[in-house]
């Protein structure tokens, strides 16, 4: 009897031990499987989502889009705007125990600028050289004034990796990244999960609430939500707008929402290869007619239960550089028809390609139906995501529903899509005047003057209309009530410092 009692007690102790170990694990459901876990190579939102646990950046952005300290405690622009000096946080170590200092910053920036397949080159292009002035002082010298630099350093370009690990394991760094964030890498099972554990040497370790975080790849948002409701996950990112009611009605769940930086837009191929040879690709008047034929509010209401933000600009209204003078035109079929007639046509054919996701598929069908009333014969071509992105990057489309995650500063978005050599300018739009305005804006340190330049830029890109912005998605995360301390930031990344379990 005694022995049985002892065994039972031992079992209960082990069981409760397991339970408490469970309680210190945060299980997060993510929609996409991240690509390379190296800040220099990463090209996906999912990657950034995981980096938020692994890699601290020089600076961060706050919920109101201000630049705030992270690994750099302070910074100082030179009077001519051609250099910036950072004062670094002291006593910071990487996950391999090596210390973070000015030399490490120099190494990282040079690594991102010179690594052959680095995706950060454009973001850091104006940096000419890096001077380590002292262990905690580093100066970046720029070829020209470049205001968006801080915003760029608040993302992957500002993530610091261990120079030791990056040198010793060059080429396989992404398989086991070593950074200076609150959590350190444990394991990755491709297309399944990524496991990270608390880094006790973190400079702000007192604010780390979980011992372990597991990111599970659950592509379907409905499945993510079901697993969350079943208690199989603690947090799920990007809940479908059509599922929000379920979250709101569930007493065990909390909905965390916030305005985003992202934009969905209908991109027309205006200059990339033979697919640009369409009436809409060649004629901006027809594109304006197309814009007049759709009702963004209906798209938002029908496809997203009205939970997103219908808008006509690439930059969201939350940005201080948003141009409130350029309002979205209201739907006007008669005017759209008149514009089509003025172009000497009655029916205008166009093929819209999109990723075969629930949201894009609904948007595409709504657009098809609305545009038909004005005289556009829209053919829909849904594509499996990988194929769609490949075709997108090659400019192999007549029109494409693009989803851009957005950036804290307007510069990266507008330059990427609208400058002649922009990295996302896959539809080959080019307007030299716009290029000049965008270049001026990135050098303008005065916010008011900078805004005036972006208003001018907006005027140009909305007249040429190589892309019709449709709406800005808002962020919706659902978490179990037991997860506290979640703060929504417009970049939609889950910052884990301060996130903790509660009973």
């Amino acid at each position, binding site marked *: 009897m005694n022995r049985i009692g002892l065994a039972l007690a031992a079992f209960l102790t082990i069981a409760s031990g397991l339970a408490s170990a469970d309680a210190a694990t945060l299980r997060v459901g993510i929609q996409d499987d991240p690509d390379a876990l190296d800040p220099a190579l990463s090209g996906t939102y999912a990657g950034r989502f995981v980096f938020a646990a692994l890699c601290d950046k020089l600076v961060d952005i706050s919920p109101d889009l201000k630049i705030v300290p992270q690994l750099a405690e302070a910074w100082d622009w030179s009077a001519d705007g051609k250099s910036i000096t950072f004062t670094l946080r002291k006593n910071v170590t990487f996950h391999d125990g090596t210390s973070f200092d000015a030399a490490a910053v120099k190494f990282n920036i040079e690594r991102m600028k010179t690594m052959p397949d680095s995706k950060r080159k454009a973001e850091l292009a104006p940096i000419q050289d890096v001077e380590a002035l002292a262990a905690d002082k580093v100066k970046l010298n720029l070829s020209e004034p470049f205001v968006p630099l801080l915003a760029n350093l608040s993302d992957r370009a500002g993530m610091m990796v261990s120079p030791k690990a990056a040198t010793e394991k060059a080429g396989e760094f992404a398989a086991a990244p070593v950074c200076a964030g609150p959590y350190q890498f444990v394991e990755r099972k491709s297309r399944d999960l990524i496991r990270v554990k608390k880094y006790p040497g973190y400079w702000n370790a007192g604010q780390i609430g979980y011992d372990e975080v597991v990111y599970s790849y659950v592509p379907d948002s409905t499945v993510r939500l079901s697993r969350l409701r079943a208690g199989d996950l603690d947090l799920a990112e990007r809940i479908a707008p059509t599922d929000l009611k379920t979250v709101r009605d569930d007493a065990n769940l909390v909905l965390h929402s916030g305005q985003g930086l992202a934009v969905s837009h209908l991109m027309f191929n205006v200059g990339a290869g033979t697919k640009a040879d369409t009436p809409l690709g060649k004629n901006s008047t027809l594109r304006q007619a197309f814009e007049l034929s759709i009702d963004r509010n209906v798209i938002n209401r029908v496809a997203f239960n009205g939970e997103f933000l219908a808008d006509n600009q690439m930059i969201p209204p939350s940005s201080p550089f948003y141009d409130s003078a350029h309002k979205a035109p209201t739907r006007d079929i008669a005017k759209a028809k008149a514009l089509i007639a003025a172009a000497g046509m009655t029916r205008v054919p166009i093929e819209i390609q999109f990723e075969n996701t629930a949201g894009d598929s609904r948007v*595409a069908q709504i657009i098809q139906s609305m545009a038909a009333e004005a005289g556009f014969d829209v053919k829909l071509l849904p594509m499996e995501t990988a194929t769609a992105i490949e075709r997108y990057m090659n400019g192999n489309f007549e029109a494409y529903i693009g989803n851009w995650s957005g950036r804290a500063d307007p510069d990266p978005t507008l330059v990427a899509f609208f400058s002649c050599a922009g990295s996302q300018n896959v539809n080959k739009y080019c307007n030299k005047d716009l290029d000049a305005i965008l270049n001026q804006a990135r050098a303008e340190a005065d916010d008011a003057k900078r805004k005036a330049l972006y208003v001018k830029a907006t005027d140009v890109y909305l007249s040429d209309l190589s892309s019709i912005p449709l709406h800005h998605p808002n962020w919706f995360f659902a978490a179990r009530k037991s997860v506290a301390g979640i703060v929504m930031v417009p970049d939609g990344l889950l910052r884990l410092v301060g996130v903790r379990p509660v009973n």
Partner: protein
Amino acid sequence: MSTIEAEPVALPARRRSRSELRRLLHEPSAVIGGAIILFFAVLAVFASWLAPYDPNAPDWMAIRAAPNAIHWFGTDDLGRDVLSRVVFGTQASLAAGMISVTVAVLIGLPLGLIAGYFGGIVDMVISRLADALLACPFLVLAIALAAFLGPSLENAMIAIGISAVPVFVRVARAETLVVRTEDYIAAARSQGLGHFAILAGQVLPNVLAPTIVQATLTMAIAVLAEASLAFLGLGQLPPLPSWGAMLDVARQFLSEAPWMAFWPGLAIIALVIGFNLIGDGLNSALNPRH
């Protein structure tokens, strides 16, 4: 089993078909299956008259409306009438079932005849190729082919058709192997008939019955396969209705708008059961071993 000997192998064609039709009508499963298929065939052919609304016309003010007096089956996520979409979706499903199986028979039957009749190296090559295709699970093969060809109903039908070819090669070859040892084949040969004439005139009629049974059963699989491909976004292009694609969309609204999934789901079940029943009935009526 004892009826094998009693069954005359080569009855005059007309008498045979009449007696088989009579037997078929005495098979309850064939009659029920036939009625179901006929029902869907009528839906497909007269869809434009039977459907109350344009299946692709959205109603922005009636998104995911529950079944009511105006929309008997409710509306979908874009406010389109589910009843009309189910009715029009019949066209895609029936076309996929029939056309893809026709493709499979047109390719598989001749290959099976040739393999079984000539034997030797020809048989080896054809049979090994069929084996290779059979080694891939049917649906996986169809998905791979459809993904390769690109999304459209036509491509889905081609993919399903090709995936179903080896089954018909097998059936036709096996029957041909039995038939070619019959005396009447030897007789035909001794009359100086060519290979083609013997294959078409003597072998084919005897291989036809099991092929028809197999074709009907394969149609059930093809209907399911088309629905699966459409569910994965590899079938009928939007906005045209297809039951599988309707299910895919409905899946996101299972708790709040179950009618979106119920009707297309029911239609798929009914049509597949219809083909299976008629296949069983045909098997009983045509197969001399029964």
